[in-house]
């Protein structure tokens, strides 16, 4: 049985946006804090801190999780994708392009979570109905209430078939 005593760290090895990372983390370290404070990836944000708003969404092995309520130690051996890893160098992801084109960004606080959740949806279901997109993004809140444009952007991206795996 693996045991990590209180106040001690254990080494985790995982990939973040394609790059290998090795870190010592304590059991209570949250993935969000590790990403933001130790890896300086500020795209995932702390907002509700209770898995409701989606501002801290990151993908772990392709599945969206709330980094605010996910132990960093769970990422050991896995692949983490944050919004910083969506673009391929200077080439934005088609979803990012669609968000720009449709003005699906107001204050931008929710945007990284919206993009990553939509990324998973389109990977699983390349041609979702508008209802399905709304249902899938139920857990990503936009307090500017710019939902219409966000939905339009995702649907347009799906329609163009331009999503990259």
């Amino acid at each position, binding site marked *: 049985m693996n045991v*990590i005593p209180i106040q001690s760290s254990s080494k985790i090895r995982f990939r973040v946006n394609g790059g290998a990372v090795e870190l010592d983390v304590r059991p*209570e370290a949250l993935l969000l804090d590790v990403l933001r404070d130790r890896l300086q990836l500020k795209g995932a944000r702390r907002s509700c801190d209770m898995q409701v708003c989606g501002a801290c969404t990151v993908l772990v092995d392709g599945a969206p999780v*709330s980094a605010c309520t996910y132990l960093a130690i769970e990422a050991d051996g896995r692949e983490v994708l944050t919004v910083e890893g969506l673009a391929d160098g200077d080439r934005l992801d088609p979803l990012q392009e669609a968000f720009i084109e449709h003005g699906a960004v107001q204050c931008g606080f929710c945007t990284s979570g919206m993009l990553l959740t939509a990324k998973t949806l389109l990977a699983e279901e390349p041609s979702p109905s508008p209802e399905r997109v709304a249902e899938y993004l139920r857990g990503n809140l936009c307090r500017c209430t710019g939902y219409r444009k966000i939905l339009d952007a995702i649907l347009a991206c799906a329609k163009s078939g331009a999503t990259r795996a």
Partner: protein
Amino acid sequence: MLRPFALYQPTTVAEASDLLAREGANAALYAGGTEVLLILKEGLLRVGSLIDVKRVPGLAAIRADNGHLSIGATATHRTVENDATVRARCPLVAGVARHVANIRVRSVGTVGGNLAFADPHSDLATVFLAFDAVVHLASRRGARTLPLADFVRGQYETAREEDEILTAVRLTAWPAHTAGAYAKFGVHERPTLGVAVALTRHGDAVGAVRVAVGCVGPRPQRISAAEERLCGVSLADVARHAGEVAELAAREVDPTTDLHGSAEYKRDMTRVFVRRTLLVAVARAAGRDTHERHPHTVIV
């Protein structure tokens, strides 16, 4: 921020049980963390260690045998949603799993965690009651089973002993010619109300009925008065009795006043939603679908 804790990763139920027995109230079981990490962050629970049960082999298994479906405790909602066996044996359960909380919670949250946490505002326990669910508990002392109705004692309260682990929930698949529906309503993150109804056809009449209501009170419950009233009624007459059946359900629930609304409001909503869900179920039993829509409502 979380206070420091030790993390144990046992690989057998016996090891986990020994840890629970040794640590007592100083430890909490942990799988997806979607509930326990929240209450730790809020300071509503303080423990010195978490016992991660995800590494116990077989604990996430989903199996079907002899008309039953067994879902392992650490199976996630996402797994349940997409599992071919669940979809074949208990499609309503897969459908409900698709609507639990949000996609992030479904990715990591587990069926066992959901049941053992016993948040009254939860879909699974209500739906599972309509499948005569039995929970499997295990400890170093041995294993036992308990009907879900007896396992959930109240809000955040279960019959699990301190050294026990919930290992699986076993559902009884509905018999042939059964149509069911689940409706949930709410404007908050968690449902305000959930109703599950299943009707088994016997010729042109209702042979067996299951009505379960959850979220409105401290624990989900089957509404036996409503079930008895509908038994034997001709399918064509069910709609005519829907109001009466809904009234019986509204009388039988034990609603609690909380942030989701007053007890009186929840009793009224029980009446409204038992009627609606019953009408969807009877339409399906007759081979039709209603495609009904209501605000802030998910119908599975």
